[in-house]
Every structure is written in C-alpha cells, then in structure tokens.
C-alpha cells in the first residue's frame, strides 16, 4: 500500500478518527510505563503510596528521605549494590542466542512445512501445537533431575537450548504461516531453472522472508527476554537473567524486598527494547519496499 497516495485520498474526518484512536491507545499503552519511569525516581513510600497517589507525583517522602524530589537510589541499588549488570549480560547472551538459533531452525522447518503437501506435515504442525499447550512449569520441574544428573544445570547453554525448544512450536507455526503467504511460483520457478530446493530457499526465499522473520524474531526475543518459568528454575544465582533477578528484588513472605530496585531494573530493562523496536520497525518496512510479494 502506498502511504502517500492513500493518505491524500483519506477524508479529514477519518484521519481525525484514526489519529484520536491512536492517541487514546498510545496513552493507554504507555501511561503505566511513563508512570513507572517517573516513579522509579521516587522512594517506595511515594511510588507505592498508601496515602495518596499524589505523593508519587510530588514526592513527599522522597523529599523527606533524600532532600530532593528525585532520587537515583533505586538505580544505584539495583545496578551497583545488587549487581544487576551481571543479569543484563546474561540476558544479552540468552536472548541473542535463543533468537538466532530459533530463527535458523524455524525458518528451515517452517519453509518445509509450508511447501510440503504430505499428511505428516500437517500432523507435525498439530503435534507441535499440542506441545505448546503444555504449561511451562510442569515441563521445567521435569527437567531438574536429569539436568542435575548430567551436570548441565545452572549454566546458560542449557537454558538457551530449552528456551529454543519450547519456542519451536510457535516459531514453526508463525513462519509456516508467513511462508504460505509467499507464492509457491517463486521458488518453484527457481527450481525449474535448475536450483536445488536448498538453493531455491537461499536465493529466492531468504531475500523476501525478512518481514516474517523479523516479526517472529521479535517474539522469540521477547519470549527469552521475559521468560521466568525456565530461567528462574534452571539458572544458578550467578547466571540469572534479568527477570528472575528482578523477582528476587521483590522479597519473599518473611523478608522485606526492595521493590524500588525492581522498578528501576524494569525501567532499565526496557531501554534496549526501545532501540531494538525502532531498528526493526525500519526492517519490516524495508522488507515491504524491497517489493517482497508481488502476488
């Protein structure tokens, strides 16, 4: 769809409607986050005030406790006292590996599923779906004993492989759907020209698959990034990724947590995602302008 042409022809009222809808949605979506960013610079008594939410705006107790209306204590505590940077490094390793491996396996498998007309291809898809229905915590509790026995518990590669496997059904399904929308003629004509299946995949499909791959990659990335069930149970304290680390800031039944560390950590954890999304947004659009799908 050519944006410019469409925009010009759109009546003013519709444009107004679209813009106001987007504004309302963005406010709804972003307000809790903006509130969190603001609140991360306050003390806990203000941000989680039991008296009035107005305290979170003006920082009544922040002033009393630190002398100014803003404080970096949460960030200092999370990053320096509790070594949050270590978790950030681990998360970087885990998410990048999971995304790359998932996509490599997934594009190959998804392409085969989309192009095969065999019955078993359908059944593989269905079984993958059933696999995906399994609640993660049950799966993870089953891993513990074998992993301890093999002495592979607690290290990053184990978690990476498990996350890739857990993520495979989703990746396969999503990429399968995307490959279905790429016309068969493209690669089949390449094969008529003498390419093998793999060559056709490499030369014809790979250049046009990026919008689908980028989107799928975004979800693989988010899965690894936000995972709690797997990483909290399969990683030792030193190898913890960000989310289990953040949850350990929250405290437990008998022990006081440090919620503001968690809040500061959450805000810090969102920054790389912001950069990532801005970058990949361009990728999705560039896939389009490359003239990927010509019907």
């Amino acid at each position, binding site marked *: 769809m050519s944006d410019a042409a469409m925009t010009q022809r759109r009546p003013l009222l519709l444009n107004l409607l679209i813009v106001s809808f987007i504004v309302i949605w963005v406010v709804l979506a972003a307000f809790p986050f903006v509130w969190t960013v603001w609140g991360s610079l306050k003390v806990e008594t203000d941000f989680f005030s039991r008296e009035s939410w107005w305290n979170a705006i003006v920082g009544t107790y922040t002033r009393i406790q630190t002398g100014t209306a803003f404080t970096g204590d949460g960030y200092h505590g999370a990053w320096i006292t509790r070594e949050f940077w270590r978790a950030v490094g681990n998360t970087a390793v885990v998410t990048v590996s999971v995304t790359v491996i998932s996509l490599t396996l997934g594009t190959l498998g998804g392409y085969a599923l989309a192009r095969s007309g065999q019955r078993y291809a359908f059944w593989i898809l269905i079984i993958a779906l059933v696999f995906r229905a399994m609640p993660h915590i049950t799966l993870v509790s089953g891993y513990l004993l074998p992993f301890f026995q093999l002495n592979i518990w607690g290290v990053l590669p184990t978690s990476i492989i498990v996350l890739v496997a857990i993520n495979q059904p989703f990746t396969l399904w999503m990429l399968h759907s995307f490959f279905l929308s790429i016309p068969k003629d493209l690669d089949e004509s390449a094969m008529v020209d003498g390419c093998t299946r793999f060559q056709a995949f490499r030369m014809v499909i790979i250049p046009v698959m990026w919008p689908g791959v980028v989107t799928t990659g975004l979800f693989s990335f988010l899965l690894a990034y936000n995972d709690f069930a797997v990483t909290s149970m399969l990683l030792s304290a030193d190898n913890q990724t960000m989310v289990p680390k953040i949850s350990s800031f929250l405290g437990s039944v008998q022990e006081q947590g440090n919620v503001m560390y968690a809040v500061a950590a959450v805000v810090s954890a969102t920054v790389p995602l912001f950069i990532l999304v801005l970058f990949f947004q361009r990728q*999705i659009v560039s896939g389009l302008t490359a003239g990927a799908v010509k019907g």
Partner: protein
Amino acid sequence: MPHKTFFAFILPSLVAMVLFIALPIVSVVVQSFHVEHGRILVEVENCQPFGGCTKETRVDTAAMAELQAAQPMGQFNGFGTYLNRSHLAVDEIGAILSDNTGFGNIVARIYNLPFYKALAFTLVFCFVVTPLAMALGFAIALAVNALPKVSKGPVIFFSLLPMIITPLVGSLILYWMIQANGIIGATLQNLFNDPTLSLRASPVLTWASLLFYGVWTNAPFSFVVFYAGLQTVPGDTLESAMIDGASRWERIRYVIIPHLAPLATFVALVQLMDNFRVFEPIVGFSAEANATSLSWLIFNDLSGDAQLFGSAGATSVLTIAGVIVLLMPVLIRTWREFNHKVV
C-alpha cells in the same frame, strides 16, 4: 516436496522438540498415572531451638528406599488422580447431582470444587480476552498503517509496551494503580462518587480488571502480526478494488481481511492457547481469592512445601486436553486448508 528434503529441513527443530518437550510430556503423563508408595511412618523425638522436644512422626526412609527401589515410579493408580476431588471430582459431582436443592445449588457446589472454579475463570478469560484483543490489535494495525512514516516507529514501540514490560512487575504496578489510593482506583471512586468502591474486594470487579488487563497485554501481539501482514497486502489488488469503486470498508472486508485470514487463524490459535494458560495476572493482581486458573492450580501444587507432581501432571494433561478441544474448530479449518493446498 520429497520426504528426504522435507526431513533434512525440519530435523533440527524436530530433535529439539522431541528431546525437550515430547519426552518430558511422556514422563509427566506416566507420572500422573502413579501415586507415591504408602509411607511407612515412625514416631521419633524432635528437638528444636524453641519449645524443647516433642514427639513427631517421620517417614521411615530406610524402609521407603526398599519400596522405591522395587518400584521407582510409585504405585500405579490409573485415572485415580484425574478423577479425584482436586481434578474432575467425579464422585463429588455424582453426589451433588443426586442430592441437591435445585440448579443454583448444583452450580454453587460444583463451583466450590477447585478444578471447576479454576476452569470457569480460565474459560471466561479465554473467550472474552481473545476476540477483544484480536479486534483491538487489528484496529491498531490498520490505524498505525495509515499514519505518516515518521510517527510509526515511536507508536509501534509504545504499542508494544504492554507486552514488553515483564508481567511480574507490570501487573504489580497496575495493581497498585487500581488500589483505592492509586491513581486509577481513586479516579474511579471520584468518577462514580463512591468512596467504598474497591476493584480488588469484589469478585466481579476483580474479574473485570483481570479481563481488562488481559486485553491490554494481548492486543500488542495481534497488532504486530497483523501489522506485518498488512505490509504484504498486494498493492495492485487494492488498486484494482479502488478502481472498481470499492469503499474503504469494502476494501478492508473483501481484500484485507481475506488476505490476513491465515494469520488470524494463527493469532487465534496462539492467543487461545496462551489465555487458556493464564497465570501471571492472577498472581500479580493478588486475585487468588476470586479468580484461579488451571495454571495457577499447577503452580499451587508445585510451589507448596510438599510438591504434588502427580497432581500437577494430571492438571497439565487436562490443560492440554482442554486446549485441544478449544482449538478443534481452528484445527479443522487448518486441515481443510491443508487438503486444499495438496490439490
């Protein structure tokens, strides 16, 4: 595609899935058919820092080790665990049906059984959140697609925020905002002029806030997938539709929606499944009193001081069965499409 090529392409992901999903599922299923050996108990003296010594029972570990060595999986129990009170509660339901004081009484007493209580919320969550989140996501995708290029990046980022923020902390912060002194809770109290209004105390309002949260966190997923799909809508089809005089709505109805249909199937599959396993919002909103889900039951079995693997396994298998039932229509649709493709 020849079999050999097909398997060459798919083998790596098959191996990963078999090792880390299929095998564990088999072991979970086997486990759910077993219960622990009858424990041999002995009374021993037990001394602690406070209160001195008391007589307490202990498991006789030496005797248990022998039993365990003979039958490592425990006692075979068939479907016993599936049918007991914590799961399908067949006996209890039978008793309720044979002795009750009317329909309301039946419903109330079945709702008192943990599995059915959890199932009720799980299904409501599933069927309310999934369509609403998909519709909202589609609307956002259409609207974002119509925006000028410069504003797309930031809008996409902000739209993704509900999905990005770790649910653990995201729901905690929202939960704080809706409490009586929080910004949303206090605003609602002012709006309805009811100072006793509490979103957390009443079951209905708790459900409503959980459902709202569900739509809020799920919409971005539909949005991203649909937005990516919109980028592949063939321009010439749209143009020819325009030349034929199709209105905006007709273009959406007859060009865009059919084009996105396979993606919509996929989104529906994933969302139904994820919503059927709803868990984080319940913990994040501290809503356990008024709403539980199947995943919460599993969590409760596994996180207690005494872990019930068999029970958790049975609930997991029932969850899978539930997902399969839910997805039947989508699966049949996929099957038809698939056969269509073969021809």
